[in-house]
């Protein structure tokens, strides 16, 4: 029972989970991040042509995702927080891609 009459449950909508992430999880993430750093550096020395920046960014994105999910607890947070994180990156991508539509298609630009 709750002493607050709240039929639509707006006060605590998803009864935010106080899930406590354990140090073991953190340690696994920590090691993965260090390994990721090593792979990033190693990959830079290999000629993958056009894929060098792709690989570097892919590894960076993966590391960012695990920091967000575990160090920042987003895996255990409400849908609202997850949506908020998504919205932030979505807007960032809009900035990048839509500005690119101009630069990519410009004849006098130096885009090569």
């Amino acid at each position, binding site marked *: 029972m709750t002493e607050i009459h709240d039929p639509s449950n*707006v006060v605590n909508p998803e009864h935010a989970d106080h899930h406590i992430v354990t140090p073991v999880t953190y340690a696994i993430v920590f090691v993965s991040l260090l390994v990721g750093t090593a792979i990033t550096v190693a990959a830079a020395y290999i000629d993958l042509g056009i894929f060098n920046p792709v690989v570097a960014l892919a590894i960076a994105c993966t590391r960012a995702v695990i920091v967000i999910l575990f160090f920042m607890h987003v895996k255990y947070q409400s849908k609202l927080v997850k949506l908020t994180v998504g919205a*932030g990156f979505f807007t960032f991508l809009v900035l990048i891609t839509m500005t690119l539509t101009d630069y990519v298609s*410009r004849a006098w630009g130096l885009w090569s």
Partner: protein
Amino acid sequence: MSATHTILNLPDQRTATLPKRTYINNEDGLLSWLFTGDHKRIAILYLISITFFFFIGGAFAGLIRLELLTPQGDLTASDTYNKFFSMHGIIMIFLFLVPSVPATLGNFLIPIMVGTKDLAFPKINLLSWYLYWIGGLFTLAALVLGGVDTGWTFTTPLSTHYLNTHVVTAATGVFIIGFSSIFTGLNFIVTIHRMRAPGMTWFRMPLFCWSNYAASILMVLGTPVLAITLVLVALERLVGIGVFDPTKGGDPLLFQHLFWFYSHPAVYIMILPGMGVISEVISTFSRKRVFGYTAVAFSSVAIALFGFFVWAHHMFIMGVSNYSALVFSLLTMLVAVPSAIKIFNWAFTLQKGSITFETPMLYAFGFLGLFTIGGMTGVFLGALGMDIHLTETYFIVAHFHFVMVGGMLMAFLAGIHFWWPKMTGRMYPESLSKLAAVTTFIGFNLTFLPQFILGYLGMPRRYHAYPPEFQVLNVLSTAGATVLGVGYMLPLLYLAWSLKYGAIAGNNPWQATGLEWQIQSPPLTENFIEIPVVDHEAYDYEWLEHKTAHEVTTVG
């Protein structure tokens, strides 16, 4: 409908008094205001602040129109004139329009409308006001030191390489004001998501909350891009980093992309809260629920979303690629649709409503007509072919003044008049306010309709001298500006007057729905004696009628 028919329902003035304890007299002393956490007090602090800056910005408008009375540039030198329109733009946009409804009416009303005691972060709310003033002082400093003449748009490479005016000071001011805006928006988003009263679901919230929510998303996501852009301009000026300098390999157009990425959503930040006000006013003075509540709610969010996709329509002639211009032009057509949906819904709210013409409603009608014209001319400008001809002319000036002044400023005045009795406990004098509203409307049209024609005929903007054949229209415009100035002075005077001599308003002089009208005027500091439980929809006039009837029979 007779002209004297009104829904105004004041208590008996012979016996009515203001409530004993209100947020105004709860604590005494200047410090209790300067260190308050109470959202209502902060709203009043903002109201005084933005009024102050409005009249400074208005003074610059007067100087602009004065210069443009004659075709020759005879009042001031050309770069002084540039300073006039730059300061006018910077002050009116960043120090007046952006905070106008959110920081005053939004701050005051949103917690009450959702049924809670304060915003989520009261101290951040106060910080927001202090940041506003620090930014405002930087802007005033730039003014006093000699002004900035880049236009409010700080376009490179003019602002970075060809001027030695106080660009960095002004840019710093705007940077700081940006954070004021961000914190306000952040507060609103958290409050609306997480602090609604029991039973207050998303679709029972007043549409004013939806509009401010959408504007807040834009504030939080868009303003930081302006911030980094201004930092880069400052670095370019101070250090010569070369980011926007073609000789060092930079691209001046990059500045414009980053600047307009914020500044286009900024115009929606400015108009959305005004649209929220209009929803409330039109519903109350038609005694009818807003037609298509869901459509209006979703269209607010749609405007916010699509508003991020159209910024390059400010750059069609600046050197963007044709393909990119095509994409942005198409998306600009799309962004007009949600705004149009709102106009239709308001019109259908009026249909078969029981309409009365109190001052807020007069401003709302003004909004409907003038915003529609402004919005439509925006669609004209979104078409590439038209824009080539019309851009950088007075057509643009007329377009944005129609939406920002004819639209937003009228909505702001509608809101101030509508909620004045709630904020102060006093009514304003109705006949004088109607006069002011009509004067404003006439003055506005006289000022800005000629500018559409001027623009179409080819008179460029931001020039202090022009060919003599444009003089007649310019004189009309300046005459209109004088009338408009009178129209804006009047509320300042009679609203101040009403604080002491206005009629006592009572809880619900407009017999409106909404939680803010169910509490005392002015409200208690904690807003509610008990947190309400909401079980009725928004704009439920039957519920209100039943409640009022119920009250009459039980009061002994």
